[in-house]
């Protein structure tokens, strides 16, 4: 596999995404709500409750939004990246060039992965800065960064992103319009949303060991999805069954 070809395919998609305002807005709106909106909710909590104890629980729960985000953002990107090629009928001339199936798959995956991870990390930086700003006086120390958000950003978020990209490649192979692909791809968010709700109602505690266990499970699921995607993403399959 030639990295230059992978990057070429991904960078072409980046150029197209820049012109798709719906993709840009969906990323920006999500990151603004999570990175700025949640810390302000936290500030309100700090102002209205006198106790220090619930603040770390809220911060840990809110941090999990960056896992949800890294799974959510690739849904719109991967759908445009693959279904967009199907809609524009550009897969046939693209597949007639001297690139391999693996390079094309890796290029498409990179195109969805990089914006999702970069926006997640930028959002997380803003989130951590604001959270510390609003809570350090009450807590007496800066709560973030900590090991929890370290595992979330360095393990869980990339793994969730890979799962989302893979799932959306599979979904995109079966549908012919972007909206359907996005709606079907959104089912991947359900387990992450369930974890968040369970943590909010304090049935599940997002400790380091819980987050590491979730990362391991996600890694195994990612491997399974990777093999499925690799089996699906075959030149002949794409041309005769996808389009």
């Amino acid at each position: 596999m030639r990295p230059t070809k992978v990057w070429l395919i991904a960078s072409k998609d980046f150029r197209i995404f820049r012109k798709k305002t719906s993709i840009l807005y969906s990323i920006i709106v999500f990151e603004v709500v999570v990175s700025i909106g949640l810390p302000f909710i936290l500030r309100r909590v700090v102002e209205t409750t006198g106790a220090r104890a619930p603040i770390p629980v809220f911060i840990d729960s809110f941090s999990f939004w960056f896992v949800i985000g890294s799974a959510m953002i690739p849904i719109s990107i991967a759908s445009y990246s693959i279904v967009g090629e199907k809609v524009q009928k550009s897969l046939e001339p693209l597949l007639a060039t001297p690139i391999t199936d693996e390079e094309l798959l890796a290029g498409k995956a990179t195109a969805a992965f990089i914006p999702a991870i970069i926006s997640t990390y930028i959002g997380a930086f803003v989130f951590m800065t604001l959270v510390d700003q609003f809570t350090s006086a009450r807590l007496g120390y800066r709560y973030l960064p900590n090991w929890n958000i370290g595992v979330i950003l360095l393990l869980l978020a990339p793994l969730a992103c890979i799962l989302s990209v893979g799932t959306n490649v599979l979904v995109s192979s079966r549908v012919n319009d972007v909206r359907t692909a996005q709606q079907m791809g959104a089912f991947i968010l359900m387990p992450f949303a369930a974890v968040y709700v369970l943590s909010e109602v304090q049935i599940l505690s997002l400790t380091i060991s819980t987050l590491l266990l979730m990362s391991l499970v996600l890694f195994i699921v990612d491997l399974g999805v990777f093999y499925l995607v690799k089996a699906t993403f075959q030149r002949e399959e794409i041309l005769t069954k996808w389009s």
Partner: protein
Amino acid sequence: MIDVFNLTKKFGDTAAVDGLSFHIDEGEVFGFLGPNGAGKTTTTRMLCCLISKTGGEARIAGYEIGNKPDSLKIRGIIGLVPDNVGLYDELSAYDNLDYYGQLYDCPDRQRAENIEHYLRMMDLWERRNDPVGGFSKGMKQKTALARALIHDPKLLFLDEPTASLDPESSKMVTDLILELKRRGKTIFLNTHNLDEAQRICDRIGLLKTRLLTVSTPEQLRRAVWGTRTVFELKEINESVLSAVQRLKGKDFTVEGNKIVVDVADPAEENPGLVRAIVSAGGEIQFTTQLNPDLQETYLRLMEETK
């Protein structure tokens, strides 16, 4: 340039292409004619290494289709214009071509030169920075042709390049193909447009899952129809018919005041026929050589295979 032997493609139990064998020389324009579902696009996709073959062999410039390392080399020396142009509407004409030039490993300087050369050739240079989404169908087709040529391929596959174009755009694209032919490109053309095939192609293959025949348009017409001369007389009488019968036996028909005669060599036989008719008292008003066009030939051959 292309050698195909017994090439077969099946989807499940259904043969899309069955036992094709043909050869295409370098610099030749080869037309592939056939109805919808005849296997034209399937054959093109096999030759472009986009789908696998079920049986048989095919070589392009010595490289074998179906062999993975050779497939990459084949895709590097061919250009394809599929039936749907498949351009990126959001990108400009220049960016579309630049992207493909890079996919084909075209060096930076040569790529820039080729983009300018082909966009100027297609009369699109002034519109190079416009998104192709705003182009007309004809302009998109020309951009797709430029894209297929960006790496100077030895062999060009064109799948219905003038389908759904208006007559003006269609002529523009056909003229471009003729220009490429003059420049010595080998062209494999799938088409429904029989006038186009007649005008452009050196040889034609008629396909209906199996290859029915391969020959030049002229040979094809002769093989199917032979050559016929029409004598239009002021009046036809028995003595004129007897005179023609003495020369041609049963190889003629009478349609009103016309006698239609099958002739193997018009230059050799027509003077004798004229003399015979005039000697028998016939007054010839007009003489016409019948040349059925490719469309009639095609329809007759397709009818025979039903």
